[in-house]
């Protein structure tokens, strides 16, 4: 028995937990390959034209698994944190997946509701494990492993920022993991920034307690978990001046993104502490526009810091 796991969307958050769950059951997980141009094109052709980029990428991965697996695991993530809600896209994802192609293998859609402190959702995973042919002991062990893994991941300390890095410019990149860590979807954004001589720090490197402190200053609670962390991280970077610039990465037609994008712009615009650039990704593969924008942003930061130190900036202007 082979169960496919699309390498897209929340795989970037929980993927390891899902695959180890399947392995414990003695089921072979089949991962789709890293996003390529073909993935994006297939996804764009098959999914609705108004969905966001990550869903199109997801569709591409899903259809890639059609031949190679007997079933596809698309967990329905209802909430990622107590008191939080998931984007409607996550909620309807399995149903969307079922409607793409009639010849698709069965879609397994156990609910994952991390907002439920009593963990009632684990029951569905247990049932799924039994359906996949595991005995009770093995199913229980797998579910325990899954829940434990998720808890461990939630409690894990953020990776310590590297201190040996000499570069003096740090860019905070606030964006969804499935955009930022997908080198095709983001057109290699992180690598490009690093190659241009700046350090990159991402949202997961900001500890939860800093994020909570910043979020308490907002008049209205945001109810999406990862968006919460993005806003908190952007505010933290701005208010502690720990970065030289913030890049907010969103995808075209991202619903929560359109809201928090406006929010971040408003807050950071009022504080005037760090410059902000918004990058909206879509399925187009032209890299030129992105490169120019990152270059311009970094150049601006470099000149601004030189001007602050009183050094003549003119040398850098002429090529």
């Amino acid at each position, binding site marked *: 028995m082979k169960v496919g796991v699309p390498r897209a969307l929340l795989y970037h958050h929980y993927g390891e937990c899902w695959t180890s769950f399947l392995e414990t059951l003695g089921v072979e997980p089949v991962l789709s390959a890293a996003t390529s141009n073909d993935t994006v094109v297939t996804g764009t052709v098959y*999914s*609705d034209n*108004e*969905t966001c980029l990550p869903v199109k990428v997801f569709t591409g991965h899903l259809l890639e698994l059609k031949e190679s697996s007997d079933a596809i695991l698309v967990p*329905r993530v*209802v909430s990622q944190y107590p008191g939080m*809600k*998931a*984007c*409607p*896209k996550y*909620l*309807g994802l*399995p*149903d*969307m997946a*079922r*409607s*793409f192609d*009639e010849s698709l293998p069965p879609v397994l*859609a156990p*609910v994952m509701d991390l907002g439920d402190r009593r963990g009632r959702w684990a029951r569905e995973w247990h049932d799924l494990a039994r359906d996949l042919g595991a005995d009770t002991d093995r199913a229980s062990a797998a579910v325990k492993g899954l829940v434990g893994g998720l808890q461990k991941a939630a409690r894990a300390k953020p990776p310590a920022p590297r201190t040996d890095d000499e570069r003096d410019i740090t860019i905070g990149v606030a964006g969804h993991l499935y955009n930022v860590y997908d080198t095709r979807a983001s057109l290699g954004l992180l690598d490009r920034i690093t190659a241009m001589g700046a350090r990159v720090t991402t949202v997961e490197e900001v500890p939860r307690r800093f994020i909570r402190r910043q979020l308490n200053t907002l*008049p*209205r609670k*945001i*109810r*999406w978990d990862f968006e919460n962390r993005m806003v908190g991280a952007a505010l933290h970077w701005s208010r502690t001046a720990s970065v030289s610039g913030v890049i907010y990465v969103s995808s*075209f*037609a*991202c*619903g*929560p*993104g*359109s*809201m*928090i*994008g*406006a*929010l971040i*712009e*408003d807050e950071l615009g009022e504080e005037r502490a760090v410059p902000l650039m918004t990058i*909206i990704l879509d399925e187009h593969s032209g890299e030129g526009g992105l490169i120019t924008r990152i270059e311009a942003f970094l150049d601006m930061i470099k000149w601004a810091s030189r001007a602050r130190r009183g050094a003549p900036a003119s040398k850098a202007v002429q090529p």
Partner: protein
Amino acid sequence: MARDACTRLGLGYVEAPPYSQRTIELGVAIAPEFVCFPMKVLLGSAIEALEAGADTLVTVAGYGACRFNYFAEIQRRILEREGYRFGMVVFDSPRDSFGDFYHNVRIVQRAAGRHLPSLIKSMVLAVRKGWAYDEIDKYAIAIRALELEKGATERAIADCREILTGAWKNTEIEEARRAIKARFDEVPIDRDRPHIRVGITGEIMMSMEPFFNCDIENWLAKKGAVIERSLYMSDLFTPMGRNPVAGRDDEEIGLTAAPYLCHEIGGHGQINVAAAAGFARRGFDAVLHFFPFTCLPEIIAKMVFTRISSELDVPILSISIDEQTGRAGMQTRLEALIDLAWNKRAKKDEARDLAAAGT
């Protein structure tokens, strides 16, 4: 309904002018680029209300995962940046946070200078009156295509609105509801006239407001379509998930949507999937789905609709609406759908006649 509530509570209110091209332009000019169309319109509408002299905006925040949940905050920020000064009361669903809900109720209560029980009573009555308003719509779209005398339905609507405006007490509202039903029963209709049955689903603002959907209900009626709609405004304000006007409760919605959409997805997504599946199972000839550009729940619904359409054999047309929507493009697509529906109807009738002749 909101007007009714304010009059009851003795609050001064300013009515935003009806939606117009100007509303859209005002909203689009200052809204974030990627928010969905209703938010741009609401923003424009809020500006028009403030220009007309309002000093407090009362709004509701959506329940669930839809981005409408955070819209009020963004709206406040944008308007303040534009230099408007006003107070804002945002009602959350009591299901999300009862504390906030109660706090807001107290604000309104202080402004109105009324006791809490009398406030609740006023709100309940306002919602009931809303039901009656929506029932007028519900009856009208069902018979407009069949009326014998042109304009009879419109006259009935006008009469009914008048009856209802004068109703204040609970008994009066109940009486008005009965009178409305009787008034529509009086409208002469031709039950044998050939017609098609069309179900309308979609985001509530787009499917209800004639200004956005190019007055679809009248247009369809002219083409001989009997219409049923899945969503009514006052149903959203009815607690406990009963939808008295549309006549379904939430549990039933979940069951109807079940094989196609197995979870609540925010906004009206599940309601619409349930409605479309319900229409298809009841033998409707076509289903229309209106949604604003980039609406999250409705796009999921749209993708699920492809499956409903092929499995239950019903044509479903999804139309995405934004500030660029033009009348002509929409009508061409609608005409195609209507033709398809008429053909299907004719085939069905033929098959039925054959079966009748065979026995």
